[in-house]
């Protein structure tokens, strides 16, 4: 662990995070967020999602700009590969969530990060989505995340960073625990 605490800077505003935890613990209404995305079909399996507005801290909020994500299926699915597959976007979501957590926890624990990289792999038996075998599920049969972290900390402290990041990760929770999903048609 670093001895001079003032030199550790992972670009995470820990004071703000701790302040938010303190304030929202006392005001649970303000802690209620709604995350949103919209999606338009383009052509074939290609669609484009747009993410801009969300709700939180008791008011409508906006990202600095709208973000767009193209999704499609690859050539081997006889598609045009205009974007990553939706399941790959899920992996990107998990990776980004865990990595943000690693940075935040490292800052909290006064660990200077030099580099953090993650590789992800998820197995899937596509007979599930093809409806070829009713016993095969549609989703991943497992997700494997491998981190390589260069930081001013012992290997054990680095493992603890990654473990704590999982404990506080939203996407990790979404993937490891069931969630009710309601899909309606207007």
């Amino acid at each position, binding site marked *: 662990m670093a001895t001079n605490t003032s030199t550790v800077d992972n670009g995470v505003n820990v004071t703000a995070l701790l302040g938010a935890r303190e304030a929202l613990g006392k005001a649970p209404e303000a802690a209620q967020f709604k995350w949103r995305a919209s999606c338009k079909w383009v052509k074939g399996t290609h669609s484009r999602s747009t993410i801009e507005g969300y709700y939180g801290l008791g008011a409508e909020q906006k990202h600095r700009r709208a973000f767009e994500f193209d999704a499609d299926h690859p050539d081997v699915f006889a598609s045009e590969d205009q974007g990553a597959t939706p399941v790959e976007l899920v992996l990107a979501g998990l990776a980004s969530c865990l990595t943000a957590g690693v940075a935040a926890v490292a800052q909290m624990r006064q660990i200077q990060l030099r580099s953090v990289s993650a590789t992800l792999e998820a197995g899937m038996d596509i007979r599930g989505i093809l409806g070829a075998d009713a016993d095969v599920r549609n989703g991943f049969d497992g997700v494997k995340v491998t981190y390589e972290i260069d930081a001013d900390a012992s290997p054990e402290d680095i493992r603890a960073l990654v*473990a704590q990041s999982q404990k506080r990760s939203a996407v990790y929770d979404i993937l490891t*625990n069931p969630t009710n999903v309601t899909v309606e048609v207007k």
Partner: protein
Amino acid sequence: MNDGALRDARRHVAVVVIGAGHAGLAMSYWLSRRGVDHIVLERGEVAHTWKTERWDSLRLLTPNWQSRLPGSSHEEQDPDGFRTMPETVAFLEAYARQVAPPLYTRTRVDAVRPASRGYEVDTDQGSWACDAVVLATGACNRPAIPAVAAALPAGIESVSPLQYRNPDALPEGGVLVVGASASGVQLAEELQAAGRQVTLCVGEHVRVPRTYRGRDIQWWMDATGLMDQRYEELDDLERARNVASLQLAGNPDRRPVDINALSAQGVRVAGRLVGVSQGKLQFSGSLRNVCELADLKLVRLLKSIDEWATARGMNGALPAAERPSPTHVEASPPLILDLARSGIQSVLWATGFRPDYRWLQVPVLDAKGRILHDGGVVRAPGLYVLGLPFLRRRKSTLIDGAGGDAEELSAHLLTHLASAARAVQGA
């Protein structure tokens, strides 16, 4: 003070202590020493919950030497042993005879409410008016059973550790044990050994070895000062107060009861129970990480013990430092289990306990029903609580922790009585 007006309607006493377990008795000891007029009310007999709400095989998780009650003249025959429940009851009965509190047994408190001065305590044996009340009713009055229990199909028996006595009392067949803290791991082991197929749901837990470098883990935690760590010293008291009980058992042979030991015994290990849907149990996919968190925390504890031993030059006299093998988690732990096909006939909810304050008619509970207090000084003047997790020290829930907490809280209480008396005189 006008005692005459009160005498007919109800009795008056300076302090009412509710509960004659180790905490209530320790408080009575300190109140007597400080010359404070008080009574102790007990719904049953001394050590009531130890007698009536514990399973047959349970032993204390702390070695016998670690039940240091204030002023106790108990001479320990087997300091390193672990008391059975009958032995614990006898131990507390002997302490009660020694402390000789002004005790009303078989007196159930129905309500504690604020009065114009102090509190009124209603019981099934009449009422008392008092200036202060000490809640020594414990932290484990009701099982904390998660909402998912309501979704269990009919025909599956639900049991809490407060009701459970022994394997024979459960219906034939497999058992789902939910929770892998002290109660959960002990009951999983006992049921599996009795020939039941146990499935154990494991969320966040605290793994510790029974013995380390030739000494009991409780000895280490006591000697290094961890048990005496005070609530004011912690950065995150909220978290410390919510930490699960240690994965320990007071077995005479000191065998481990961690996940590795249970797996080797044949217990099926799954993640936290997160849902029951259409007769299927759903487990979290986070098993690997909760085991990793526990392993890392364990190594940090053992390291701090090693550093403490090294600093005191004890290494020569101790067996070498060692690290337990990491928790083995199978490659793909179960995520879904069909109840009907699994053979599970009963569910044991080892998911923790909560105090019961239904009789407490003083507005001192938060939105989650927890009592608002600062080291046992409750947010209503003259109200005190004992025996809650990390109340004043890490050991506050242990028999060993009652004395120090009662000593300090009784001192605070004395100051309160003095200022209450001044207020009455001034009025």
